[in-house]
């Protein structure tokens, strides 16, 4: 009995010391201070000036810098958070099991930049509620899921918006026979909306601003909301206009529904990454910019080999990696032909757009603002130097 008591007391003492020594978080705390400093600095300066800071990388860099790229490379594949219910942006073909879409193509572009292989991706379909916790916790490396850029999401969700790949606006769709043309006509109507989205908030804002009474019906998933709309449980359905166009193509009677000519808000959509890893932020951002710049210079997946061999414009040579001394990729932690790989494997912005949202697809959306600044749109990438 004596020995048992001593054994218990001894194990207790060992446990106490183990607990006591489990406080590396004091070290973590000081690292956190560094992280917030660095993030504030880069938020103020434009993206181009982050490149020299990245080359000065080693020890004093913020906690998390470079960790995502290391994790992705060690895993051997990119985990990309997408949606599987929006044709044209992120859609799972139940027959072939393949993901297709505008956002999915940007996932492929990042995989092409990191691995030069667009099959090394694990797609995780996340709904509107799971997407931010999944990104925060590290379950997904990047979230490309037609997510709107807002201040609250940039801060409270501890995530960063990388770049806008699609400039959109919120719209409402109604059955044609209701003959509703402006917001005030929807007085007393029931409007279906998906939970946890900016559409909920924008709808509330606009209806209050126009002093229109309505009843919201908030469903968990876009599929459930569309089902309620088709069953006439609600009179209208609201989401981003791109989402409306893609959803109309899935309705049983697409001709019976019309998109109202009202825009409730600005909806800039783009990829999101976690706070804390500036290198990964730069990688995703310059993947997006590569597609803009490639379209600007007329480089496509078809002619990129020729362009690499023959084009003499300095920026194009840096883009395709023909200029061996401009080690653009190394600055990001990638291979120097990362831009070439993106263009060859996925294409430039125009090709990505046409493949998913072009005139020959079922979800055809006119480019509008989503065109180069030289073509009447707002896509403007910094110089590739």
């Amino acid at each position: 009995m004596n020995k048992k008591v001593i054994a218990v007391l001894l194990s207790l003492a060992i446990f106490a010391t183990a607990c006591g020594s489990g406080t590396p978080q004091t070290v973590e705390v000081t690292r956190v201070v560094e992280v917030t400093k660095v993030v504030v600095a880069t938020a103020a300066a434009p993206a181009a000036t982050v490149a020299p800071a990245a080359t000065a990388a080693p020890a004093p860099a913020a906690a998390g810098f470079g960790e995502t790229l290391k994790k992705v490379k060690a895993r051997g594949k990119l985990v990309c958070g997408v949606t599987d219910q929006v044709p044209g942006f992120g859609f799972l073909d139940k027959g072939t099991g393949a993901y297709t879409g505008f956002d999915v193509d940007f996932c492929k572009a990042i995989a092409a930049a990191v691995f030069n292989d667009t099959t090394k991706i694990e797609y995780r379909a996340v709904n509107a509620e799971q997407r931010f916790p999944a990104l925060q916790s590290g379950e997904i490396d990047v979230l490309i899921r037609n997510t709107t850029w807002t201040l609250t999401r940039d801060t409270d969700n501890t995530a960063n918006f990388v770049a806008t790949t699609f400039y959109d606006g919120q719209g409402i769709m109604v059955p044609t026979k209701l003959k509703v043309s402006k917001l005030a006509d929807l007085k007393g109507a029931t409007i279906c909306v998906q939970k946890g989205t900016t559409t909920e908030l924008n709808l509330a804002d606009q209806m209050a601003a126009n002093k229109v009474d309505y009843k919201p019906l908030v469903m968990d998933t876009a599929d459930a909301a569309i089902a309620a709309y088709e069953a006439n449980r609600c009179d209208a359905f609201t989401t981003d206009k791109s989402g409306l166009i893609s959803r109309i193509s899935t309705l049983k009677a697409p001709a019976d529904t019309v998109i109202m000519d009202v825009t409730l808000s600005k909806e800039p959509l783009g990829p999101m990454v976690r706070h804390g890893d500036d290198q990964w932020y730069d990688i995703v951002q310059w993947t997006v910019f590569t597609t803009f710049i490639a379209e600007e210079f007329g480089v496509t997946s078809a002619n990129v080999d020729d362009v690499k061999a023959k084009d003499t414009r300095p920026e194009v040579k840096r883009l395709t990696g023909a200029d061996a001394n401009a080690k653009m990729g190394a600055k990001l932690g990638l291979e120097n032909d990362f831009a070439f790989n993106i263009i060859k494997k996925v294409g430039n912005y125009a090709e990505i757009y046409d493949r998913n949202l072009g005139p020959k697809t079922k979800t055809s959306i006119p480019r509008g603002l989503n065109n180069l600044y030289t073509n009447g749109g707002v896509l403007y990438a910094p110089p590739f130097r």
Partner: protein
Amino acid sequence: MTQTSPTRSASTNRLLAFLRDERFLQVLSQIVFILIIGGVGYWLTQNMLAALARQGIRLGYGFLTETAGFDIGEMMIEYSRESLFIRALQVGLLNTILVCSWGLIFSTIIGLLVGIARLSTNFIISRIAWVFIELMRNIPLLVLLVFLHGGIFLQLPRVREAIALPGSVYLSNRGLTIPWLTLTPAFSIQVPELQGFNFSGGLTLSPEFSALLIGLSIYTGGFIGEVVRAGIQAVSKGQTEAARALGLSWWQTLRLIILPQAMRVIIPPLTSQYLNLTKNSTLAVAIGYPDLLSISNTISNQTGRSIEMISIIMAIYLSISLVTSAILNWYNSKVRLVER
């Protein structure tokens, strides 16, 4: 010089006697157990805080006093998009309590009837009850709710072609609309009228609320039926025979002799079923009823504060469950067998 037996001083003897005392060892083992549990809990909390600090996530409940910004479809108290998040949570809590209280009442009634019917000597009645119980125990509740909502309530005619029942009662896929008391402008009964898109005036029971209430009631009613059957069968047959010998009718036997004794056996499992119903009401999220969990999820998504919101949800559901089981335990102690 070897000693044949070790001699100890008087104080060592006392110490050994103390350390070998059973009461001391019991207290010591309880202290050790608490310290171990506390240690594990402390380590887990420190781990979580360190991970959050590493990601730059701050914890705090101050966000609850920010403007909600979203509208809610059904509410029992005043609410608008300019109300605070706290107000939105109150709306959700009241919606949950509304569904749960009616659900408890209906499921108890259904459970009692089904349990008694199951024991009936009438072949058809007991078979129907048996089929009902087996169906309810084997169909997942989520499937049942989606079927009731999408397959039954949403298939009702559209608002403009609503079924008109006598007494200004309308049945459509926007719900059951009935005349109701109203306090403004004057205390009177308001008759619903079709205006534009929906009925205005009167009380509308939305399909989401109806599907959730009916689904929860029949699902839990099936389980309660079995609990009631167990309770009734626990009362010895001698009681029934004595009651019949005294000349009591079947209904009087049930009401005066069987059920009061069966209550002792029924109450504990019944408490569990009530708590199940309360927790199952969170499936409202799947059919669009704005209950507490649904609104908390919206807040959690709009503010990014998942950990704080989960702690709030857990605390609220825990309180509801504790109150329910406290009430039932008090009732249980009142109907307990008091040995003379």
